């Protein structure tokens, strides 16, 4: 399925406490007050601690492709929410929402990921009152 336009609607949403940390600090890297949602074609999925990484090409309305990276909680945390090494495969289209990097780079912290058919990946999103 063709990637949808970048929907980086950086919305001032409700204040959301930081997601669970692994090695580096959520609060230092990500803005808990700025949410972002992107849809793109996955080019890589790294499922190793201290954080997993989803790399995806996101095409905007002008056709420009930007490579985004979505950092996940530690895979040990993801595994308890039904994630596995092959939960996301290169080539598939996913929508990821979460919190954007403070430095303005195409980098974000994943709160949840859904497939093109709208199905949530894993058993629950990450974020407020997070459980590891």
């Amino acid at each position, binding site marked *: 399925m063709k990637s949808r336009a970048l929907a980086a609607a950086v919305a001032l949403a409700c204040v959301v406490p930081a997601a669970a*940390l692994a090695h580096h*600090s959520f*609060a230092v890297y990500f803005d808990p007050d700025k949410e972002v949602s992107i849809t793109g074609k996955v080019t890589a999925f790294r499922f190793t601690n201290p954080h997993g990484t989803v790399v995806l090409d996101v095409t905007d309305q002008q056709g420009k492709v930007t490579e985004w990276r979505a950092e996940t909680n*530690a895979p040990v945390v993801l595994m308890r929410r039904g994630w596995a090494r092959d939960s996301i495969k290169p080539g598939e289209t996913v929508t990821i929402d979460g919190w954007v990097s403070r430095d303005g780079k195409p980098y974000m912290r994943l709160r949840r990921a859904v497939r093109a058919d709208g199905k949530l990946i894993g058993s629950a999103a990450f974020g407020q009152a997070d459980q590891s």
Partner: protein
Amino acid sequence: MRALLIAATTLMVAPAPAMAEPDLRGFWNLSFGSEQPPADLIAKLPANTVVIEDTGVVEFPKDEYGGLKMKPEALAKATAWQPEDDMLVSRVCLAPSIVYALQGPFPFEVYQTPDLIVLKYEYFDQVRLIHMDGRGHPPADAPHSKMGHSIGRWDGDELVIDTTHIAASTITNNGLDHSDKIHMVERYRLSEDGKSILATQWFEDPEVLENNGARYIKWTRQTGQYVYPYECDPSFALEYERIGKPAGQ
């Protein structure tokens, strides 16, 4: 026969044997709810102590230290710290010391014997030995490690762990580092229903801090669970380096 009766009577009036120590064995996961720590537990902290509120999910942003007062050199170092400093292949998988690792949202397992308690942490696959056999700490020049050297004792129904020989590392994961002179004392007790551990983690570091720090931490027992291997992969830092660069470069 008379002697037997006397012996039996003695047994009946003799004080009951000392209560066995609380059983802390099992899998414990951080309790993510926010609640006030028990006042009596906080009251046992030494004077000049600030309870910092970064336990679990919450972390301090840059330049916030929760009331910890730093000596000038430590403050200057923390102020100069940049997040990218830790996002290097050479650093991203350096395990933090127990001072920071203890409060994170990762589970641990407890193995308990009268002379030794083993704490197996999921975070960075770390293991602590808590010596309960009455020994002291090794000489000051003995090797230091991220988990340090721990000796424990029972204070009533509370487990008190005294830890020294902790290698220098982070306190708050945002540039505030402790020295290898840090001294940590933890106090653990079971909740009344036995389902949770309520704990304080206190620390002093005369080389870095003007005051003392502490955290309140609560974990909940979960059955049928195990810690997973952590096996940190430093190539995560390479992903970070690639952010914002054109694909393929």
